[in-house]
């Protein structure tokens, strides 16, 4: 039964990604600008902190990119896949040595990625606005993820559900 773990990894990655997609879709987006504030970031950070960089990358990249596809912004999907994937990875990688630092690093990756993309797509004048929304977005994410990951970690201990 060596494959149990691989299969479970795939499934858990997929389900956490679906959570990110759902959380991103739940809040009504301001069209196009990815200016929608939502709980997606909070879930990405929580998953990355609890389960590590690989899950962080999968749920961030895949989950958020699927939301772009479903909400009708396919153009942004590949960008999101890369940027949020990297963001989730960075948070997961750095989380063991400090959650706040990890989130700050992830936020930097996200903000830089989207600001540069915005520069290319809408002109450089738009980049600062994108940067601002990204900072708010990560702030919301951190406010959710820090308490959530801490309580989840404690509560799931010994229930056979923790990883």
């Amino acid at each position: 039964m060596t494959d149990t773990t691989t299969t479970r990894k795939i499934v858990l990655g997929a389900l956490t990604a679906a959570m990110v997609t759902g959380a991103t879709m739940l809040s009504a987006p301001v069209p196009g600008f990815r200016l929608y504030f939502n709980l997606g970031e909070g879930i990405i950070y929580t998953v990355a902190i609890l389960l590590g960089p690989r899950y962080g990358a999968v749920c961030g990249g895949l989950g958020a990119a699927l939301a772009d596809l479903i909400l009708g912004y396919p153009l942004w999907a590949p960008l999101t896949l890369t940027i949020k994937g990297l963001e989730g990875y960075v948070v997961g990688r750095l989380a063991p040595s400090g959650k706040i630092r990890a989130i700050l690093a992830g936020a930097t990756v996200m903000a830089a990625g989207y600001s540069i993309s915005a520069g290319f797509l809408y002109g450089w004048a738009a980049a600062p606005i994108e940067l601002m929304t990204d900072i708010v977005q990560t702030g919301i994410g951190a406010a959710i993820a820090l308490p959530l990951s801490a309580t989840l970690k404690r509560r799931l201990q010994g229930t056979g559900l923790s990883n």
Partner: protein
Amino acid sequence: HRCDPRCKIMSVLILLTGVFLVDSPVGFIFWGGLLWLLSLISKIGIPVLLRTVRPIMFLIIFTAIINLFFTSGTPLFEIGPISITKEGVRLGAYMALRLLFLILFANLLTLTTSPMALADGIESLLSPFKRLGLPAHEMAMMMTIALRFIPTLMNETDRIMKAQLARGADLDRGGLIKRLKAFIPVLIPLFVIVFQRADDLAVAMEARCYRGGGGRTRMRPFAWGTGETLSLGFVLTVVVALTVLERNIGL
């Protein structure tokens, strides 16, 4: 354009690259023609295609305006501190049009291809990189499962939110931080459900003989025929031709 998703993905990638290279009014007219042609072939009417842009129209206008006002250069006219420059008008119009075309081509892909077919196409396109350690099959499998569970998880979230609401939780009052905190009793049960479900589903998949991508076949195999090669060749030729042509006329 009901052909192999791989062909469609590659074509759209070529088209998107092409759009980035457009740099003259003539170029945009050419591209408009190409878009019209493609929408004819794919039997998606231009009105349907344009409707997909409506929610993003705000963004296109925003792009135009922001470039209009914030580009320095030869002033056309000034109103108080705001000056509109020749370069600004040009850049604003180009950026907006370029964005419009990018969105339209990307939407053309998603209008003609289901997310499932996209997942399969991406898996197949990425499979040559498997040897470099890229988990192409796993990514496609995850995309399939994620798509399947998005509606289920959203229903469950709704139910948990209502259950906590019924217990007096207040999700839409108070300051931002207070509201965010109120979501924690919703998110914890959601995570618990997800972990439990991951275990159950993994067992169910293995009971159905799932053992990774190796040795799997598919019910609808990809058929890369001459049609696909021709259309990809066509798209490539047209894009290269248009770009070269535009450079020589436009400049």
